[in-house]
């Protein structure tokens, strides 16, 4: 059987034609796939914006509660004390009056400092301006000033974070630290910021009384669930480890 040149050429043309059809088909399919992928990305963007907005609203709500608590429990009390001192000021005994004025001055100074501290902790723009690490360092200093805790911060590596994510991380840090202050009965609090290997790790540990994580989340852990949700919203992973009597550790891992 002799191979026929005409048939071979015809087969060749057919093969080339099929390859060309394949390429055209691929381009059409690719464009369709690209449009679908863009639509999915846009939908994800919208969903992300919505969850971000929801988080911001929750944060605002919590912030207002925090302000209300601070005003009532701290600033209000100090202001009342000032008022009492001023009301009980007796000018017939100048020595006592002088002591009372000095105490009032100290209370006023404390009030101003507390107002400043509250203002600083509320200002989200500050995070964008000074950065998350600096803001956390300020928090550490604030904790040390109370003389009830020995707080320290360790920073490894550097990284750039989007402002939205930095603000959410800062608010989460404030909530974790507040929980430690209120419930842990710890004497040492440590913060670790590790920005190496394409991920940002933020870890908080204390040497307090600890708690049962599962029980806390299942029962009344609204705050802990809130933290878990917020971590999810910025694509971060939050883990809590705690042993009763041996302290707690909360770790946030954010892929960069």
């Amino acid at each position: 059987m002799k191979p026929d040149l005409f048939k071979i050429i015809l087969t060749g043309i057919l093969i080339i034609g099929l390859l060309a059809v394949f390429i055209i088909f691929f381009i059409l399919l690719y464009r369709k796939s690209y449009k679908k992928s863009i639509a999915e990305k846009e939908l994800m963007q919208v969903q992300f914006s919505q969850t971000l907005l929801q988080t911001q609203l929750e944060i605002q709500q919590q912030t207002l509660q925090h302000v209300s608590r601070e005003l009532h429990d701290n600033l209000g009390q100090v202001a009342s004390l000032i008022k009492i001192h001023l009301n009980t000021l007796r000018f017939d005994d100048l020595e006592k009056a002088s002591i009372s004025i000095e105490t009032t001055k100290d209370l006023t100074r404390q009030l101003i400092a507390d107002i400043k501290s509250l203002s600083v902790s509320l200002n989200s723009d500050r995070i964008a301006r000074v950065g998350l690490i600096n803001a956390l360092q300020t928090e550490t200093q604030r904790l040390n000033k109370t003389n009830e805790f020995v707080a320290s911060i360790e920073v490894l590596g550097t990284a750039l974070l989007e402002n939205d994510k930095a603000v959410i991380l800062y608010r989460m840090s404030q909530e974790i630290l507040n929980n430690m202050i209120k419930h842990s009965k710890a004497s040492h609090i440590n913060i670790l910021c590790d920005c190496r290997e394409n991920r940002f790790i933020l870890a908080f540990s204390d040497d307090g009384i600890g708690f049962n994580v599962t029980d806390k989340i299942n029962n009344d852990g609204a705050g802990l669930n809130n933290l878990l949700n917020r971590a999810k919203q910025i694509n971060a992973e939050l883990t809590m480890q705690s042993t009763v009597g041996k302290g707690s550790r909360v770790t946030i891992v954010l892929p960069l």
Partner: protein
Amino acid sequence: MWLFKRIIYLCIILAAILIAYNRKKSLPANLSALKTLLVIVFFNETLAIIFAYTFKQTSLLYALFGPVQVFLISFVYKKTFVSRKTIIATNLLMYACLIVMLVTAIINKAWMQVNSEGNTLKSIYIVLLCLLLFTDWLRFPTTFNIMKEPMFWVNMGFFFFFAINVFFWIGYDFLAEENSAILKKLEPIQYFSNLFLYGNILYAFILQKKEVKRLEYETGPV
């Protein structure tokens, strides 16, 4: 006429090499490897002309060039694939292909005669890489106009060239035995598929921009 055709073919490869060197700062890893492959092809083809005139056969050159070609083309594709699984599969397929090519080269005494089995296998392997890249692009589309992507033209060139070569090498032994005159008549198909491949690569390097765009992110300090 043969020499004239070869010179045209070499001129296209040389033009692609010069443009690739002109854009060397902006070349990604895959196109950089392709540039190296072109330089090797250029020297191989030049030597092939000399060998054809002096020793009357070029089998040894192509037997040595085959594995290098498989290795470099695999590298080009590995650097282009997005899917990690595809990259691992390419590694495994590459080693399997190289081993079988070596075995067929020894059996067929590739340094003395054409190793059609080895060439068929190599062509099938590279067509498979092309199809994997097409699939990868469909799974992870990145740009609306794929025709402005240099790798699209490179992939299309390899796809046409090696798909045609699969059929050519499958029928090679049969045609050489039954009607060697037809093989001579089919040479233009191989020649033009070569021109198509290197023409596509040349166009891909032309499409590659000289400057690398700097990525800017909207970020704040940590």
